[in-house]
């Protein structure tokens, strides 16, 4: 009794001191309500035969019809498959590259050159996908592209690489590496800096060569960071960068390149304006993504003794 009365008094005192803070945060809360929580309410559209003129309150409720519709045509399952394939390629090829880059960068002895390479390596991270797409278009252009020039010089006939399905995923994976390698390497670089110098010296005294030092000292030293990054990447497996796909895809590469996000865009705003169907497919992705991220956070809490990713 006494205790709770004291707690209540304390709370009252705190409220008296802190009430202006609520006023300060009010605009932020309003923004979140409008642009995050109101759209969450809009999920109802997924269960409606939504008509824009009728709006969300007067459109007809049709239960799970949109979800059935989604699996009636092969395009949505195809979008799921494409998303998973591109993500797995990004994970298996794109994920190790920054780690290798960071380790090799750390082995460099010319410090000024090392700094220059590092600074330039994360420049592409700050270049927009429209520009990156532009660079790709120009390098791969069948008429004026650098690749086309080489192909012609070797007696071949250049083709429109950006419009051919079999090249699409390679272009996606390689351009993602080009854009993100340096930036992703930063976190590994800082982890490597944290590895105890004495361990290296002990390894040298034990006669370990360079690759043995990397294998037995550097890699174990940054293993926790690698684990967290890997878990995060797995949690984001349904999120293939939309801006990237949007800039690179065209009608000729839809079969291998259309991801879930792009499907939602195309069905909803790109061509068909089927809002119900688009919202329903977006919802499926959100729900699975949410479950994945919760699982992933639980795992990372376990691995790092209570330090979750949030």
């Amino acid at each position: 009794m006494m205790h709770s009365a004291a707690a209540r008094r304390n709370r009252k005192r705190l409220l008296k001191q802190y009430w202006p803070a609520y006023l300060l945060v009010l605009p932020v809360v309003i923004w979140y309500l409008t642009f995050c929580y109101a759209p969450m309410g809009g999920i109802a559209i997924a269960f409606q035969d939504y008509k824009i003129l009728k709006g969300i309150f007067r459109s007809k409720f049709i239960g799970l019809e949109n979800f059935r519709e989604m699996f009636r045509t092969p395009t949505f399952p195809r979008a799921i498959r494409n998303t998973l394939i591109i993500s797995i390629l990004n994970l298996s090829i794109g994920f190790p590259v920054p780690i290798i880059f960071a380790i090799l960068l750390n082995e460099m002895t010319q410090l000024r050159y090392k700094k220059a390479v590092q600074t330039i390596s994360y420049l592409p991270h700050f270049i927009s996908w429209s520009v990156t797409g532009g660079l790709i278009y120009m390098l791969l252009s069948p008429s004026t592209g650098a690749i086309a020039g080489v192909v012609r010089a070797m007696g071949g006939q250049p083709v429109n690489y950006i419009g051919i399905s079999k090249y699409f995923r390679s272009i996606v994976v390689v351009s993602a590496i080009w854009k993100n390698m340096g930036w992703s390497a930063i976190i590994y670089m800082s982890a490597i800096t944290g590895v105890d110098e004495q361990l290296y010296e002990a390894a040298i005294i034990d006669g370990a060569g360079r690759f043995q030092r990397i294998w037995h000292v550097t890699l174990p030293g940054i293993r926790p960071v690698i684990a967290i990054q890997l878990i995060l990447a797995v949690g984001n497996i349904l999120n293939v960068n939309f801006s990237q796909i949007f800039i690179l895809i065209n009608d000729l590469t839809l079969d291998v390149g259309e991801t879930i996000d792009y499907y939602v865009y195309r069905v909803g705003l790109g061509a068909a304006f089927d809002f119900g169907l688009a919202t329903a497919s977006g919802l499926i992705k959100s729900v699975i993504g949410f479950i994945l991220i919760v699982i992933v956070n639980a795992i990372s809490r376990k691995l790092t003794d209570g330090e979750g990713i949030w």
Partner: protein
Amino acid sequence: MRRMYTHADKVFHSCNLTFMSLVLILTLYPFWYVMIGSVSTMGHLIRGGFILLPDGLHFEAYQQVFRNALIPTAYRNTLFITIVGTAFSMFLTILGAYVLSLKKLPGRTFLTFFFVLTMLFSGGLIPLYLVVRSIGLLDNIWALIIPGAMSTYNMILLRNFFESIPEALFEAASIDGESIWGYLFRILLPLSGAGLATITLFYSVSYWNAYFESLIYIRNRDLWPMQTVLRQVLQTAQMNTMLYDDARQTVAAETLKDAMIVITVVPILMVYPFIQKYFVKGIMIGSLKG
């Protein structure tokens, strides 16, 4: 200490040096290639391959690009959304981050949850589009600023930065009669230059680079930013509709695209050397605490 270099070390270092130089070339060459392309003749590029130098300095492509009324307007729009948008985003982000950093605030846990939940779950593209539509922002330049103004990630970064400033300062200020608002404006913000610079730059770059919002919210081309015009130019096989508003077609389409890319990217390339150190600082603030 200075180690003896063995033969194996020398081999390794020269391989590594070669590899790093390759990384440098692969990172920078695409930019160089479009710069060459924008001032060269078509023939030079067609014969070329991985060319290193242009065959002269032909600026017709740039003249052509700037003659089109769409480009200066797009540049102005980009500047507007970058400057005004960044200011607006910083305003909201500072308020949110500050209030979240008040350790004794009643309801702080709930507020954090309220913000962070939106990083994990969202209504999706269509419901957001309908909200933007219903508040009358379609075909309005503010649609390029307001709906995407907040990044919860940036807000958490800034909160972490604020939290790294000793709490004793806040206690002392309260005892001196400083109010919640006064502490923010008179004490906290002046101390947070580095953190604010980082977040400001994150927002500016993302406004400068944004193109998708304008494609879904804006029909009126006069409100498009540079990135969107560039994207449309790249996607249109027949450029006539986009760039040739007169009959004076003297420059090849590919060269025009090169020029478009260059004028979009050059501002970023120019400021990058001066601002890059803040970006790394930012990612470090973030990694202190997730």
